[in-house]
């Protein structure tokens, strides 16, 4: 086993374990912290794929900004005690079976396809570097980029209007 495969296995285990803990923790604050761990593991996968720009943006935007917003809202609402009452056991089981069936169907759909030769280029390749992505972003994708700034402006106005006391 090469060092890349070991790193891949470790990051995969961390991501899946973190995701499992997100949906099984009773306390919402622990859920947020486990989700941050999962995002760091996914950023590790990005670094392994040499997508360095996305790895840094994932840490800054997701683990930094969005998760802090979640933590802020949870602490603002004083939800950090275990208030969620135990719901119907059968409904919970039905949810787990439904998600498991989805996973089973998706994996079974992959069984017969021929992608053994398709290799994701791990460790090298300069497509994920800031220089190439920036060049592409400001030439081919400059219109969606500007539209996304309008989206942010409208989201900001919308959040203020919704959260305002009337």
């Amino acid at each position: 086993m090469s060092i890349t495969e070991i790193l891949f296995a470790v990051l995969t285990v961390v991501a899946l374990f973190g995701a499992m803990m997100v949906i099984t923790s009773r306390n919402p604050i622990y859920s947020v912290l486990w989700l941050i761990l999962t995002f760091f593991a996914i950023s590790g996968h990005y670094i392994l794929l040499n997508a360095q720009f996305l790895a840094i943006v994932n840490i800054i935007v997701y683990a930094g900004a969005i998760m802090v917003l979640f933590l802020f809202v949870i602490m603002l609402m004083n939800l950090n005690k275990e208030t969620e009452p135990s719901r119907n056991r059968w409904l919970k089981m039905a949810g787990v079976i439904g998600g498991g069936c989805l996973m089973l169907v998706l994996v079974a759909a992959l069984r017969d396809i021929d992608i053994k030769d398709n290799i994701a280029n791990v460790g090298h390749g300069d497509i994920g570097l800031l220089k190439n992505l920036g060049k592409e972003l400001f030439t081919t994708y400059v219109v969606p980029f500007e539209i996304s700034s309008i989206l942010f402006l409208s989201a900001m106005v919308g959040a203020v209007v919704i959260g305002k006391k009337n």
Partner: protein
Amino acid sequence: MPIIYYIILSIALFSIGIVGVLTRRNAIIIFMCVELMLNAVNLLLVAFSKMHYNAALKDGLVAGADGQLFVFFIMVVAAAEVSVGLAIIVMMYRNIHSVDVNFLNRLKH
């Protein structure tokens, strides 16, 4: 790294997100599970981007930047979505003093 590993990992993360949405009642945790599903798709997009880069490498082309820019735009949209969604959840908590989605069934009546 074979692409099938990344596909399986993304399917597993996505399914865990689905199970979380179906089994939890706290609106904030449901929202976090949606973020988890978005991240599973992002990971798969980056893996496919590197796969196509690898395939086009023989021709000397620069392929695969599109996939990573799509991930960038998904992150942009997710950030906007979270700001509005959390504002809605705060508003809901202010009105009914709970974030339990079972109390949100008033459209039924």
